[in-house]
């Protein structure tokens, strides 16, 4: 009935990374000079209110990617468009005023907070820098932010050392939220924390992301944490994206052999009975990456073509992209350990309910 309409021009995504690359020149005095492609021609979008998990092992370029997007380091090539505007083309002043929209949460809550500043000063500093709510408005806002991250506003005059690791990470989150950013890059935000505290911080980030419709780039080596928090997952290996897909799709049927190996490496809380893909060898040196597909020397499914021709990242209509010549031919994946996928035993689920009661304000530090 309705007449054909011209499709509305869709607004640009919150973040569009295209052809982003970072090369480092290495060596010098004693070694031959070389070029290291830390990030090698990667492209992805991040929608408003979306969490994208960026996973990979150390040295794969995931942290560098986060820093390139925030222009904490300068890219060698490519573009980073924030709501359609290429950040890499902005001069220092224009970039400075954009920074309030783009924030970073660090891995280490011990080294990322200035020990000589109070919590009030730490969280209020971005507001001073951007001339927002100067004066008494800042104190009100700091109190509100502390409340939001589950800390007691009465503690704003305290110093970082008076807080536990998890509380310090909450302070780092409050600081990142101070200017109501639209995009936050979280670089391994729970890796330095104890397991029981990791869960608190993951829950907090998930809640804040939903409530404030934040775009999150969640960088992690922990696939299960990524599964918990991200809507989509991007897997990186030696500077390149090898698979990008909605979280459910990638956990149901990973297409890239490397993704599969990462999933098979998740320790299962019972003796293993699965046929797992345990990779031989280590990550090759990014200084001297293998020819063709970077993963082929460790890949049990590699063919002659893989050694010579680098596969392109190709997406299907459902938005599941993979960079592998042979993904359609390789045998079906056996899935995560049943110990991880079966529902929690009713007894444990019942006992766990007790922990879910409304959060009490954090206990005072002794």
């Amino acid at each position, binding site marked *: 009935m309705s007449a054909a309409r011209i499709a509305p021009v869709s607004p640009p995504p919150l973040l569009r990374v295209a052809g982003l690359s970072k090369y480092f020149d290495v060596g010098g005095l004693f070694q031959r000079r070389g070029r290291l492609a830390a990030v090698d021609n990667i492209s992805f979008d991040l929608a408003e209110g979306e969490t994208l998990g960026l996973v990979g*092992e*150390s040295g794969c370029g995931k942290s560098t990617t986060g820093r390139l997007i925030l222009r904490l380091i300068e890219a060698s090539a490519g573009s980073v468009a924030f709501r359609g505007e290429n950040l890499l083309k902005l001069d220092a002043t224009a970039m400075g005023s954009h920074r309030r929209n783009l924030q970073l949460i660090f891995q280490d809550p011990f080294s990322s907070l200035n020990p000589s500043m109070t919590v009030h000063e730490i969280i209020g500093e971005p507001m001073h820098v951007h001339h927002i709510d100067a004066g008494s408005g800042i104190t009100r806002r700091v109190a509100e932010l502390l409340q939001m991250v589950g800390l007691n506003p009465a503690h704003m005059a305290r110093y970082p050392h008076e807080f536990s*690791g*998890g*509380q310090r990470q909450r302070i780092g989150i409050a600081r990142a939220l101070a200017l109501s950013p639209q995009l936050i890059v979280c670089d391994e935000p729970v890796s330095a924390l*104890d*397991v*029981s*505290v*990791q*869960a*608190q*911080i*993951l*829950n907090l980030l*998930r809640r804040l992301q939903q409530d404030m419709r934040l775009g999150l780039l969640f960088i992690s*080596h*922990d*696939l*299960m944490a990524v*599964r*918990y928090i991200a809507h989509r997952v991007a897997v990186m290996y030696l500077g390149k994206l090898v698979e990008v897909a909605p979280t459910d799709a990638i*956990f149901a049927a990973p297409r890239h052999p490397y993704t599969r*190996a*990462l999933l098979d*490496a*998740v*320790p*299962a*809380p*019972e*003796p*293993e009975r699965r046929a*797992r893909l*345990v*990779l*031989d*060898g*280590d*990550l090759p040196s990014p200084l001297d990456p293998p020819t063709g597909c970077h993963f082929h020397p460790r890949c049990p499914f590699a063919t002659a073509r893989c050694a010579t021709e680098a596969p392109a990242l190709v997406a299907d209509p459902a938005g599941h992209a993979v960079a592998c010549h042979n993904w359609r031919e390789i045998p079906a994946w056996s899935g*995560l350990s049943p110990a*991880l*996928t*079966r*529902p*929690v*035993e009713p*007894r*444990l689920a019942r*006992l*766990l309910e*007790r*922990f*879910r*009661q409304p*959060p*009490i304000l*954090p*206990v005072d530090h*002794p």
Partner: protein
Amino acid sequence: MDGADGHSLPVMPQAAAAAPLLQVRDLSVSFAGEAGIMPAVRGASFDVPAGGCLGIVGESGSGKSVSSLAIMGLLPPQTARITSGSILFQGRDLLAMSASQVRSLRGSAISMIFQEPMSSLNPAFTIGDQIMEAIQAHERVSRREARDRAIGLLRQVRIPAPERRFSDYPHKLSGGMRQRVMIAIALACEPKLLIADEPTTALDVTVQAQIVELLRDIQQERGTSIMLISHNIGLIAGLADEIVVMYAGGVVERGATARVIGHPEHPYTVGLLGAVPRAEPGDHPLVGIDGAVPDLRHLPPGCVFEPRCPFSAAPCRQDEPALRSLLPGHLAACHMAPLDAVP
């Protein structure tokens, strides 16, 4: 409320008759510092089964690593003091031995691998030299024989081209390879007990899986007993026959792995199991345990977990619960256990 309905649970077979290889009894270790005395381990008791794997799980400050250093005789003598307990290895108390007796046991009968394979190797010597040194420190063998055995060990820890790798310096090896070399050194004198303290934590995810497989193979092929220490309950549960859960210096629960994972009786164990993301269908919020690990210098009166515990009641704030048996072989230090009875 006092364990009365323990009989309604399935009764497990009694533990095998074989004597445990290592028995730790009522071990307490304190550190003296400027800020006062810190009780790092408080009355811990556990056994490592002969030929089996004991997993110790705990977060920072739980006392899991300090316990292993006490077993190895590696506590810093200036600051640490063992205030009580015994450590029986094949029936002999390590704490009653002379320093030289302990030294000869360390490496030959008990050896240890650490979290940081980068800093545990000497950068100035080849890996072959370092393995040979470990062999020759405990046995009188010729250089030629030591070399052959070192290459055999490199092969056993699945290092490709061991003859060539023998002459490599540590910096040429990746983190996973260095951890394999550390395991080769630890196995050099065919120890009966291998203590692995967070052996995979510093490694990449895919390499972690390799090291876990290697440890499992070593236990099965050589019959080496393993004491595996980790913050990762999933890793422990995949390898260990028995599990010890530590919190703030004390053992809060122990028993056969399947029992403790399948039927936890300490609220902390329950919380830990709920804090690890799983992949079951549907959306299940993770359980974070509110609060943080207490400062060991200012432990709360009563149960140390009480301030974070959703099961706590009046007695928990007064008396520290003792580890008690709920079933043969399954113990928990909780006034409220068995938890099913808590209203």
